[in-house]
């Protein structure tokens, strides 16, 4: 027998799973809607229960009704907490992805592994976005905010790698067309499957975004 709050619990179990994944699983549109609907239904029930009292409800005189009202209220509160926690888990993940330099187009396209774990992040790839429209918006705006913040320091890259580079120059292979980039030594045209010997600092972002692969 399904009970109020069961759907919300399902949502939180999704969130629990999400915490342990390197990518973001698809947004549970249906489940979120169902939980929101449950809250509205409960709210309606409360209104109906209270209607005959015309605003002068006395809990001590109407214990049974008071108990029902409390159960309804607690169920709504529980659902709210589940909804908020689910979305918070996902936005935390989105922020992490922004800091790691993920691209919103990659995320929108399909499930994207965190840049580090490209090899094992490819299950469940579909053509539909794993983000809700609101999440895509959040992702973009957080990206803008981060860029603005980073802009204050022109000589430090806050999202750069913490590992000191072993070599100043590295070999990279181009995994997908990235167009032309400007470097100290002139322009390079990054076409798919070509290989270059470039300064690591110039291409770090592109590696993180999955355009280039570091060789050797």
């Amino acid at each position, binding site marked *: *027998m399904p009970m109020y*709050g069961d759907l919300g619990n399902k949502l*939180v179990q999704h969130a*629990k799973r999400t*915490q*342990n994944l*390197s990518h973001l699983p698809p947004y549970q549109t249906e489940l979120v809607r169902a939980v929101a609907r449950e809250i509205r239904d409960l709210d309606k029930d409360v209104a109906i229960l209270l209607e005959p009292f015309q605003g002068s409800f006395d809990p001590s005189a109407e214990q049974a009704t008071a108990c029902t009202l409390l159960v309804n209220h607690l169920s709504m509160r529980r659902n709210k907490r589940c909804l908020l*926690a689910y979305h918070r888990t996902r936005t935390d993940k989105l922020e992490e992805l922004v800091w790691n330099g993920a691209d919103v187009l990659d995320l929108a396209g399909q499930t994207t592994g965190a840049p580090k774990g490209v090899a*094992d992040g490819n299950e469940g790839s579909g053509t539909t976005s794993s983000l809700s429209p609101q999440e895509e918006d959040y992702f973009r705006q957080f990206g803008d905010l981060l860029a603005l913040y980073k802009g204050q320091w022109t000589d430090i890259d806050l999202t750069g790698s913490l590992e000191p580079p072993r070599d100043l120059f590295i070999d990279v292979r181009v995994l997908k067309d990235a167009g032309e980039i400007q470097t100290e030594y002139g322009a390079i045209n990054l076409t798919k499957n070509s290989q270059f010997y470039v300064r690591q600092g110039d291409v770090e972002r592109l590696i993180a975004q999955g355009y280039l692969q570091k060789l050797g």
Partner: protein
Amino acid sequence: MSYYDIDAILTDAEKIPCTFQIDVPDLGYLDNQPGHTLKSGSRVALPIWLAEMLAIANTGAVDMDDPSQSSKSFITFDLPPALGNDVVQALKADPRSVPLRDQSAHFYALATHMMELSEEPELSAVLRKTFVSRAAEIALHARKVGGGGSSYHGREGGGGAGGKSKGKATKEDNASNLGVGGAGEDFLRGLDEWERKLFRSAHDGTKASKEWMENVKKR
């Protein structure tokens, strides 16, 4: 414990046995009988998020003849089976042989929550002893697992149960720990969420310090 804490929310979903103290016409569905009155005295298993407030809330009824009865709660509750006498006796006998996870995935969190609601001095003492002796065992396993070459063969098998690593984890982390073969397998499978976290921290810590040591030697 934060409002957004996923584990806290899941702990609150654990059900505990409750007894209703009043008749409530609209709540029959809680006892699988929608449309019927939920009778006073009905025993129903309710999730903590519901039971807690129902037990604390005052019905507000004032009984003039007997003031001691005037602040009756909607329900009374008992300890869940996971914290029942059987389990407590088993823990007293040998804490390490009880798979806590089978009782509840959030065993300690559940117990802590229940102890906030009612005084259980004996339970508290038993659990403290349980955690201490199990923690030592966990630390021991965490150091062995995935550390030496001999236990590497168990890694593949561990992938399923070990899928708990955070996003930052590399491929190697994903493959490590938990369901690793050998005598410890059963024990590790019986860890509750809190103990799993402990295991992970101990394991990652050992691994990180080892990596660091190897790096130092190289230079």
